């Protein structure tokens, strides 16, 4: 019996092994939602398409397989845009299926018509408009292949409603080819080996490409065998355990001073799956000014994009790392880095009775080393990156490249569904949480065991901090002191909640979060003037780290 296009879509998803998709129905995508009723694929109904896309993004980061989200045409599709951009900037494999108005009226400004294919072109790895129902199996299979291979990213499939309803004469099963394994060039490998053997002060600069490439174990093995000090980017956190003695910390604008000083002093930077992002490098021509560069990446266009690479190792990170030399004679440098690590270790003896968020976050991951933290964006995001311990990169879900406020709750939802039974905590702020607050209902609807640690400074803290430091304390639209009562908000969604305001309540709150079954929101009220330190001012080199201003 012949199947409709929509049924072919669902069958193609099943063939890809998809278990969960995130979405929101509407007019143009209705045939696919109808077909889903007969499928084993579980659909998670978000309460806003952006929530669906961001949850699918986190699901992909945790499982390592493409996340899938779906929405209707017009506003459904445009609401996905931030989620697609988020996945694009952080190289997350995502397959996005949008309903479209029928091909017969495309281009006529039909009801709920929008050119999502055009709108998303700069933020997708690739995109398709399906013009014939018989192309559906091939298109979906290609979408998954393109999303996952090499440097991953989002792929959009725009599906006009008449194509979803059409019954093709034949619908061939389409099998994708095996991904090509790119092996680094032998001459570049040799050049890299010589650079490492000749270096006195090498640093491993690890990024989000390490977990994406499945190279965490290889990276750890090389770091351990070589003894080269390690710094990571925001997305690279956990590539070595943050408890590892060779780990100096995150580099960059809010990095640890020891990490930034090591980079600035280094004579060889071994960049593994990172991209010299401006938040990591600060002023580019002042970044690691004495260092030669080895750049290992799966993406040829990243090598040499922002910083000349003396050796560029394109392809499989595992192979590249395995080919690098060990047995290095760098003891004085290791000792210098170890001394800087001690010198610049985080301190948690902040005076006063106010809740000190860095200490609270450190205590959370000390009490629950297995916790997965889904972060929102702002000051609390940087505190998480600085102070939480991570044994694996998948434990740290953060919107790095795009900096999407509103990521935290959907990401927590995606993580809960990706690893049922895992301990997941969303750390959010009072600004960020309001951007996708509706997803509290998704937590409730599916009974997800997601804990929310809401850090509330009654302001847009990071913007306020910049206005304080760089705009002469001219505060513009950062006061959020009219926030709703977040405890009552959570309860109205059927999620238990409590509030703390004093430092002596922190330990009890952490225990309560970790010991309670089911969702729970802890509303943590902090000093509105709290800032994130240290800070490299925008446009400065990483030598220039501002420390806490005296009160």
């Amino acid at each position, binding site marked *: 019996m012949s199947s409709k296009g929509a049924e072919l879509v669902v069958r193609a998803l099943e063939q890809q092994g998809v278990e969960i998709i995130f979405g929101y129905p509407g007019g143009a995508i209705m045939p696919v939602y109808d077909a889903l009723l007969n499928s084993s694929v579980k659909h998670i109904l978000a309460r806003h398409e952006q929530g669906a896309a961001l949850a699918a993004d986190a699901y992909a980061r945790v499982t390592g397989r493409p996340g899938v989200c779906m929405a209707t045409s017009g506003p459904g599709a445009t609401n996905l845009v931030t989620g697609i951009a988020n996945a694009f900037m952080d190289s997350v494999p995502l397959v996005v299926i949008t309903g479209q108005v029928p091909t017969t009226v495309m281009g006529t400004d039909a009801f709920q018509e929008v050119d999502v*294919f*055009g709108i998303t*072109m*700069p933020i997708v*790895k*690739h*995109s398709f*408009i399906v*013009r014939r129902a018989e192309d559906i199996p091939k298109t979906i299979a290609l979408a998954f292949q*393109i999303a996952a291979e090499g440097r991953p990213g989002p792929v959009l499939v725009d599906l006009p409603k008449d194509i979803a309803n059409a019954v093709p004469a034949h619908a061939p099963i389409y099998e994708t080819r095996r991904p090509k394994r790119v092996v680094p060039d032998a001459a570049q490998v040799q050049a890299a080996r010589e650079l490492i053997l000749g270096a006195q002060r090498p640093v491993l600069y690890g990024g989000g490409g390490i977990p994406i490439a499945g190279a965490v174990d290889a990276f750890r093995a090389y770091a351990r065998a070589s003894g080269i000090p390690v710094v990571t980017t925001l997305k690279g956190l956990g590539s070595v355990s943050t408890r590892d003695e060779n780990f100096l910390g995150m580099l960059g604008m809010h990095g640890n001073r020891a990490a930034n000083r090591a980079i600035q002093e280094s004579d060889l930077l071994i960049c593994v799956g990172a991209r010299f992002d*401006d*938040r990591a490098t600060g*002023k*580019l*021509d002042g970044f690691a000014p004495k260092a030669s560069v080895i750049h290992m990446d799966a*993406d*040829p*266009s990243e090598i*040499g*994009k*922002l910083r*000349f690479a003396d050796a560029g190792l394109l392809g499989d990170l595992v192979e590249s790392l395995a080919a690098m030399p060990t047995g290095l004679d760098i003891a004085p440098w290791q000792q210098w880095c170890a001394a800087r690590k001690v010198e610049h270790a985080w301190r948690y003896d902040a005076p006063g009775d106010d809740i000190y968020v860095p200490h609270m976050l450190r205590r959370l991951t000390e009490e629950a080393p297995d916790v997965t933290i889904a972060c929102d964006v702002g000051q609390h995001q940087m505190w998480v990156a600085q102070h939480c311990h991570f044994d694996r990169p998948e434990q740290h879900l953060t919107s790095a490249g795009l900096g999407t406020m509103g990521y935290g709750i959907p990401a927590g939802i995606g993580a809960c569904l990706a690893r049922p039974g895992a301990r997941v905590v969303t750390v959010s702020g009072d600004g960020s949480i309001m951007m996708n607050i509706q997803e509290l209902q998704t937590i409730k609807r599916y009974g997800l065991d997601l804990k929310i640690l809401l850090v509330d400074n009654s302001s847009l803290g990071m913007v306020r901090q910049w206005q304080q430091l760089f705009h002469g304390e001219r505060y513009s639209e950062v006061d959020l002191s009219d926030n709703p009562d977040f405890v009552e908000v959570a309860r109205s969604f059927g999620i238990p909640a409590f509030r703390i305001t004093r430092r002596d309540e922190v330990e009890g709150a952490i225990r309560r979060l970790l010991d309670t079954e089911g969702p729970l929101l802890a509303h943590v009220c902090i000093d509105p003037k709290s800032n994130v330190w240290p800070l490299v001012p*925008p*446009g400065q080199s990483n030598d220039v780290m501002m420390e806490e201003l005296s009160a």
Partner: protein
Amino acid sequence: MNHTLQMNLHQVEGALIRLLGLIERRGFAVTSMNAYTGEQHVEVTVDIHSAGRSVETLTRQIQKLYDVRSVACLTAAEAPAALGGSVAC
């Protein structure tokens, strides 16, 4: 710097606009272009200009596009571009 790029694309929906969008987005102005559509492929030749971006990085970014079969830069290799003076916000 001025450069000439010659590309061969699969003739599929969006291929041309995706290519031109990428070139402009990555900081190059198209000063002249010519496109010839064959049965399955599109031959595109563009003259581009940029004050400081690397055409080699651009060609690798173009090469990554799924619909691009080949790309060649018809001008001589250049010294590595320096973005050092530029800073993000």
